[in-house]
């Protein structure tokens, strides 16, 4: 429990010094009382207590005691940090060790008096965490749901305020929010209790007769109607900012669907994927631009098929050399190709054609029958339609002969080849079609920004796309959408998060692989494969034997 506490204490010190706590401190959970930064700080000893209580076996008192100690240790670490700062100038090294941060950490107390308070607070939170670990699920689950609902309200308060804009909703707004500030205490309490009560009810009614009387088919229909209506209404209700965020989510979904064919289905890890997005964007840019580098002045609609075709061909051409490479080497080789493409576009050598670092400017917005897709709210619908079409194609591909061939080579190339699958054509199709999907995204990106330049196509994008596939669940189409909503949409909405986005991505990638390798919404096959160890002991033995022979072979 000491060690658990120390690990979490290190985490608390790290998030404080890295600036995360202070950044989140700008947003109230309860106006004037509690900020999201404070919630983060308090959650760490709680998690520490929870972990310690889960790990220790023994009587209830022993487990709660472990939680208390683990939580208090976290408090002690934070107290030590505050004390350390009073002795040496931390800011020379850690840019985010600002006075405001330490004001927050010490609660305004002088450094000598800060640590007892920190230990006490940590201990209390540790107790809460330990209680959470010991209590039955029917108690903790509703509380957890309530807390996350309240936290979501706090995180998305701008959005909620936007929806509550009309005068007719003013009473609700004033009851929920302090004018010009964060949520009110009564509002938060109401949201928390209400959602907790709902969750408790749901928990209690589970296991009894079916929740809804509708047959599954009708249920699915009803859900899709709701989904379509929601998709259509979102930008209207949320305004241009939300629409912009949704367009970006849509673009990542397009790329994700493409990469999903390669990584999720065919098992070909491609880290140079952004190159195809760039190729789609540049093709549209060059063909439609009315500026210096435009070559054809085509309309957007004529340029898109060309862009898709060019991306597809590029996918095949870059796919041919790496046909014989597998696994880790493939990842690095494709990364190399992606960087080569970016560096070439950036260089002076190709500047006369591609515009060097400034890129291709003055790309007109698409016009359809006199209607110009000018703002994000219009482009949103374009993106949704494109994503829907691509998702449909991907869905049909998944269960086709080709899709099954992809899954076969993902499992074992040699066996797949022995079964008569033509590795060359199947792999090239994966690269080509994946690239084509990304090309669609690139085409929309070009008209969204109005210019294309190499700086938009960094390796980071490839990593983000990979991350969203993994978080969503490899090989799963709904997973791609959820992944891009969570990994791309949330950070865009939470502005203060911006700087820490990639920090969180890195942590999420590692945590997902450790805790839930199949992703949030896994495809059936992937789930079977990755969870095989838990479900079938025989598989475990087989895996161990396999590993042993691999090591010795």
């Amino acid at each position, binding site marked *: 429990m000491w060690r658990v506490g120390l690990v979490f204490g290190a985490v608390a010190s790290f998030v404080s010094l890295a600036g995360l706590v202070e950044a989140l401190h700008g947003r109230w959970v309860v106006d004037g009382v509690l900020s999201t930064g404070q919630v983060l700080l308090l959650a760490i000893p709680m998690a520490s207590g929870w972990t310690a209580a889960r790990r220790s076996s023994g009587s209830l008192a022993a487990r709660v005691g472990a939680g208390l100690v683990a939580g208090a240790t976290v408090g002690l670490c934070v107290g030590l940090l505050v004390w350390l700062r009073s002795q040496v100038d931390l800011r020379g090294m850690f840019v985010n060790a600002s006075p405001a941060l330490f004001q927050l950490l010490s609660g305004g107390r002088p450094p000598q008096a800060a640590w007892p308070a920190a230990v006490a607070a940590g201990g209390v939170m540790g107790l809460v965490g330990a209680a959470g670990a010991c209590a039955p699920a029917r108690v903790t689950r509703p509380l957890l749901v309530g807390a996350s609902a309240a936290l979501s309200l706090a995180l998305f308060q701008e959005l909620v305020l936007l929806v509550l804009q009309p005068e007719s909703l003013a009473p609700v707004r004033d009851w929920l929010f302090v004018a010009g500030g964060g949520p009110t205490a009564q509002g938060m309490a109401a949201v928390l209790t209400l959602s907790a009560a709902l969750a408790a009810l749901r928990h209690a009614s589970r296991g009894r007769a079916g929740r809804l009387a509708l047959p599954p088919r009708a249920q699915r229909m009803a859900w899709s109607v709701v989904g379509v209506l929601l998709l259509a209404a979102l930008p209207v209700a949320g305004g241009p900012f939300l629409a912009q965020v949704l367009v970006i989510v849509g673009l990542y979904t397009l790329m994700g669907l493409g990469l999903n064919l390669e990584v999720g289905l065919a098992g070909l890890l491609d880290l140079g994927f952004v190159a195809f997005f760039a190729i789609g964007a540049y093709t549209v840019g060059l063909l439609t631009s009315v500026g210096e580098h435009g070559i054809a002045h085509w309309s957007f609609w004529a340029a898109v098929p060309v862009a898709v075709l060019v991306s597809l061909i590029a996918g095949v051409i870059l796919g*041919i050399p790496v046909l014989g490479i597998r696994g880790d080497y493939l990842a*690095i080789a494709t990364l*190399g190709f992606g960087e080569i493409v970016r560096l070439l576009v950036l260089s002076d*050598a190709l500047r006369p054609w591609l515009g060097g670092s400034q890129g291709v400017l003055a790309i007109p917005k698409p016009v359809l029958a006199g209607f110009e897709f000018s703002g994000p709210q219009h482009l949103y619908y374009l993106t949704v339609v494109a994503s829907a079409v691509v998702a449909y194609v991907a869905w049909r591909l998944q269960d086709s002969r080709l899709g099954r061939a992809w899954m076969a080579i993902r499992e074992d190339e040699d066996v797949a080849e022995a079964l008569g699958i033509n590795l060359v054509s199947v792999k090239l199709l994966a690269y080509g079609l994946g690239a084509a999907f990304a090309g669609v995204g690139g085409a929309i990106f070009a008209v969204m920004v109005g210019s294309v330049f190499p700086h938009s196509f960094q390796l980071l994008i490839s990593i983000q796309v990979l991350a969203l596939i993994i978080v969503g669940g490899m090989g799963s189409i709904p997973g791609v959408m959820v992944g891009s909503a969570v990994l791309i949409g949330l950070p865009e909405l939470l502005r203060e998060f911006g700087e820490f986005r*990639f920090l969180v991505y*890195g942590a999420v990638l*590692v945590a997902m*692989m450790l805790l839930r390798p199949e992703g949030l919404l896994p495809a059936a096959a992937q789930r079977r494969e990755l969870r095989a160890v838990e479900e079938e002991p025989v598989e475990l033995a087989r895996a161990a034997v396999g590993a042993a022979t691999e*090591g010795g072979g």
Partner: protein
Amino acid sequence: MAAGVLRRPVARRLSFVDAFLWAFRLAVVLVVVWGTVGTLRLGRYTGEQWVDFVVFGLAQGGIYALIALGYTMVYGILRMINFAHGEVFMSGAYTAYFVAAPLAASGFLDRHPILSLLLLVGVAAAVSTGVAVLVERVAYRPLRRAPRLVPLITAIGASFFLQYAFRGLYGSGFKAYPEFQLFKGEWQILGIGVLRTQAVVLASAAVLMFALYQFVMRTKLGKAMRAVSEDKDAAALMGIDVDRIIVLTFAIGGAAAGAAGILYALVFKQVHFFMGFVPGIKAFTAAVLGGIGNIPGAMLGGLFLGVVESVGPALFLDGLGIPAPYQLKDVIAFTMLVMVLIFRPQGILGERLAAKRA
């Protein structure tokens, strides 16, 4: 093995792929030859400049080689690419900056330059070792038996996490590394004027590599490392604590990378949270070039890559009339990476390790 036997007749069927690959090879060779001839005919560079390029390349290559050791040793033992190794390299150099800056401000750096350099290398190596061991413990060890793709993804995640963790902690700007007065200017070595920094870097890299090589080949722990890389299970049966050896491997690779970080800071005089990415990839190229899993190979690969990268833009590209060929320095390195992975994944010193997985 069976797979190899099966592959051969298939290879004949892939003739259009082969043709494509031959065209690719031919194109690269043509570009290189054409460019070289063009450059030599232009005669824009003097012999002295070429020597400078080579010396700079060797210094650079020494740094790559030190980083490459970490890749190659980890690969030798775990058969995985430690994608976060570039960040291990960065963490040491970036942290040591906070030692170097006060040392320079107090004048200690110029009064005792050798002592300071040793101190900095020590700090950087300690930090990098710590980071490397931490990454192993958190991101790799729990996944020892997972499918291959899984540790690679955690490695990418760890790499990102480290970059942005250091950005959050130390800030996103470039930090100017203090300069050593002693290492300014040139030394005459064998009648050639060599920048002192480069000579120091090359010498330190050589000493460190020699020491590491001796450690791996002569000590008991080194022997244990080689045994684990040969066969983990058999090594465990012989009483070797495999987990400990793996940690040791990460630690040694981290220490080498930390030292390389200081040498890098000596040459480029600045540090940044993103500085690990490109040298990391290049060092990986060096490791593959030399035959991954092979320690002398990594050293050779590093030096070779450094020289090609330094000489290449002037030699191959200038003659083609490409403006500002130095912008394409990294393109040369990445092209070499891709070519090696495609055409000779077993590297120069063809290791059977690599041949097995190719």
